[in-house]
């Protein structure tokens, strides 16, 4: 049994208008429901273009080594093989073929050396996918193997095999500038946080607990495997159709690699068959783009489920956590050293390291904190974000230790958490004052749903039972920007242009609700235009629990811009003051009862049933970059998220099998735009993380 509870806030009226909300705050089904049950929904997976070639990747069979020779002759001899692309071919159009959101460290195809098993070395292009598959096997690569390192702690130690000669931060994230040019290390980023005086804190403690917790790598296994289709668009252009969570990033990164202005690269997505953090930044896009430009034909590169395991994982991590407590259960000091196994290429790992790393002390009010986070290169496949952006690895450590400490002190685990909880108005270890984080409410609801104060049957014989609770905190990823446009067309109908990607989280519906609320339309009447960088404005990416907040605010502002334009036109047409008008039921209404439908407003503006009114909105919350020496920032995140979970389990002591018999998930979500949709996100989130 799994139970998900959303801690609600009382229904709130729109702060601006002082009126009840009509669309926001209502549970409603997804706009695309019918298409998802009749098979017609669009995924990039389904796309076939005329004359398209199928690309199949030949992958490294070793973890670390120099490429001595690539022999593609047998593959080229296969009937139906059009070309075999290697790094040499890539170099003819991309002289510096290294990409990545955090570091420019990942070559489009292995260049000189390979750094993990499964790294792409060559791409076979063929008219038939089966031929491409057979021929990819026939590419023969000779390697000179090097020592490899897979453990994140060993890789960070002196004397480990060095995976990259030099650190090359990308420059997009200012938090990473200070590591540029470092050589002879696998530590891609060391992110520190110091507050108080850690030694003094331990001196104040009655007891100090020290533990090491480890978590393994996990694969997202999105059911729509990664897929990109690239096609030349005229002599100087390129279109990439891709199952991506970050179309805007794909455009800028491909343009950068090619040395083109962004306006010559068009990137579009459709619905995603799952994302979970796997389909971020560049995955197959650069490879497909280069192949398409080299052969001047559309090229589709689609992974099998197995190939996804070579492409991106969640970080494995080693967390060393040392906590000083007084005998009455107050935490006086916490020191956490975390090694993040980033794999062979940084991907977004350094950001995961930093953005999650500063929460490593947990949702607790601790005066003396020292956190060290190391993003470490290893010879595993690259690691990135998976549902939580690095948070769950840290929660595993600090909440396991919370239970150990509580037991040692003879304090109820729930009570131990209460005594140390970080409350609103207090400073987080980063120096940012916390608000909107209802620790008490979450713990209360957890206790109630778990019936925490009732006696618990711990079983007997070979079946034993146990229960536990945990809370965790995440900061919304910052700094980031979203931009949206809302169009009203000649007939008065409305569309939202947004680069937020709906990968199952129901963002289309949520964003439509926000636009509908502002414009006084029923939500199903709002059309969401899917990401297409030729059409939809910039968005940082669909990740890190940021879209509803950032894009939601951008859509709201864009809709308010449109509303202002509609009201202005109507005010002129009706000869009334703008302040007397409101948008409702697809029309502009005046207090005196006059009414102009949007259709009539458009006619009034353009003198015919035509034209477009465009509203634009952007949202960039403020942010203060942390001091690289102390990690201190008075404004580290626009908001905090707090979640809690409780579980009852049965353990078969003869086999070690654990059965979850009850699972409760509580989250402080603020005001839900679409409450049913929020619950549907939280309930599976706890299942997917349980499987992880």
């Amino acid at each position, binding site marked *: 049994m799994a139970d998900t509870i959303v801690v609600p806030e009382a229904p709130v009226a729109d702060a601006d208008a002082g009126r009840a909300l009509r669309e926001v705050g209502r549970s409603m089904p997804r706009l*695309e429901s019918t298409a*998802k049950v009749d098979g017609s929904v669009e995924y990039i997976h389904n796309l076939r273009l005329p004359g398209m070639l199928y690309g199949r990747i030949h992958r490294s069979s070793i973890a670390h080594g120099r490429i001595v020779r690539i022999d593609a002759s047998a593959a080229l001899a296969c009937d139906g093989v059009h070309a075999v692309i290697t790094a040499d071919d890539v170099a003819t159009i991309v002289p510096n073929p290294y990409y990545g959101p955090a570091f420019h460290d990942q070559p489009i195809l292995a260049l000189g050396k390979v750094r993990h098993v499964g790294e792409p070395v060559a791409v076979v292009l063929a008219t038939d996918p089966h031929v491409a598959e057979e021929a990819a096997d026939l590419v023969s690569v000779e390697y000179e193997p090097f020592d490899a390192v897979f453990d994140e702690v060993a890789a960070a130690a002196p004397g480990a095999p060095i995976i990259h000669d030099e650190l090359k931060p990308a420059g997009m994230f200012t938090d990473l500038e200070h590591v540029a040019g470092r050589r002879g290390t696998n530590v891609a980023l060391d992110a520190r946080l110091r507050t108080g005086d850690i030694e003094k804190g331990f001196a104040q403690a009655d007891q100090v607990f020290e533990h090491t917790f480890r978590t393994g790598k996990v694969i997202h296994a999105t059911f*729509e495997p990664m897929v990109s289709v690239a096609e030349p668009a005229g002599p100087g252009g390129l279109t990439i159709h891709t199952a991506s969570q970050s179309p805007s990033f794909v455009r800028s990164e491909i343009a950068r690699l090619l040395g083109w202005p962004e306006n010559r690269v068009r990137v579009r997505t459709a619905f995603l068959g799952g994302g979970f953090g796997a389909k971020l930044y560049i995955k197959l896009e650069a490879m497909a783009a280069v192949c398409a430009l080299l052969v001047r034909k559309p090229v589709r590169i689609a992974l099998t489920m197995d190939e996804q395991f070579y492409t991106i994982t969640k970080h494995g991590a080693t967390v060393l956590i040392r906590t000083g407590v007084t005998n009455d259960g107050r935490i006086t000091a916490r020191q956490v050293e975390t090694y993040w196994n980033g794999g062979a290429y940084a991907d977004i790992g350094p950001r995961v390291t930093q953005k999650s790393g500063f929460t490593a002390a947990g949702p607790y009010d601790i005066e003396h904190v020292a956190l060290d986070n190391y993003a470490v290169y290893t010879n595993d496949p690259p690691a990135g974000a998976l549902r939580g952006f690095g948070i769950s690895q840290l929660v595993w450590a600090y909440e396991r230790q919370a239970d150990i400490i509580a037991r040692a002190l003879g304090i109820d685990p729930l009570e131990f958490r209460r005594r140390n909880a970080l409350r609103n108005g207090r400073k987080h270890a980063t120096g940012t004052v916390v608000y909107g984080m209802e620790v008490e409410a979450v713990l209360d609801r957890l206790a109630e749903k778990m019936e925490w104060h009732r006696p618990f049957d711990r079983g007997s014989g070979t079946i034993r039972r146990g229960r536990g609770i945990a809370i965790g905190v995440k900061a919304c990823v910052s700094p980031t920007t979203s931009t949206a446009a809302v169009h009203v067309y000649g007939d008065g109908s409305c569309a939202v242009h947004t680069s937020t990607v709906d990968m199952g989280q129901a963002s289309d519906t949520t964003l439509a609700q926000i636009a509908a609320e502002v414009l006084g339309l029923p939500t199903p009447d709002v059309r969401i235009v899917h990401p297409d960088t030729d059409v939809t404005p910039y968005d940082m990416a669909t990740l890190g629990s940021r879209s509803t907040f950032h894009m939601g605010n951008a859509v709201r502002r864009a809709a308010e811009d449109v509303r202002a334009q509609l009201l202005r036109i109507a005010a002129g047409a009706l000869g009334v003051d703008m302040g007397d008008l409101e948008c409702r039921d697809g029309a502009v209404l005046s207090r005196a009862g006059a009414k102009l439908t949007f259709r009539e407003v458009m006619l009034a503006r353009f003198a015919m049933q035509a034209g477009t009114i465009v509203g634009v909105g952007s949202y960039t919350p403020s942010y203060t970059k942390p001091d690289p020496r102390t990690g201190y920032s008075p404004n580290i995140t626009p908001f905090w998220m707090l979640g809690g979970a409780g579980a009852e389990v049965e353990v078969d002591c003869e086999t070690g099998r654990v059965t979850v018999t009850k699972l409760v998930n509580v989250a402080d979500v603020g005001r839900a735009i679409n409450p049913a949709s929020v619950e549907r996100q939280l309930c*599976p989130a706890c299942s*997917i993380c349980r499987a992880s």
Partner: protein
Amino acid sequence: MSARHERAVAFTLNGRRVGATVATHETILEVLQREFGLFGARESCGQGLCGCCTLLVNGTAVSGCLYFAAFADGAELTTVEGLAKNGELHPIQRAFVEKSGFQCGFCTPGFILMTKELLSRHPQPTEDEIRHYLSGNLCRCAAYPDIIAAVKRAAELMRA
């Protein structure tokens, strides 16, 4: 490819008699996509484990990713695209919409078709029967509670 490695096949697809020339190593899934533009059955795991490629052959569910197209000759095939009649969704589809039995939707046609086989044998399925039939269909978004609710609702709608 020699003629021995190709086959002319004829089968009924969503109620319509159709034919195609297929290679011996092609799966029915590939042929549905290439020849008929049907993408409701989708390859994901490619091993018969996830159920995204489910279709009905002579009324029983099979994994399209493991089913040679040549074996479809003479059979009656149903994909999710064949369920709606005259623009009206099938009751199972309506139930999945009503109960929001999906998130990303990639696995949804497979669940719907497996539900169809379940309800054809057990019009009033018990919880155990539902789990027995659907245990081989996976949802990576983990919408399972809503899916089970949708199956129960579908049984009600079909009896109505």
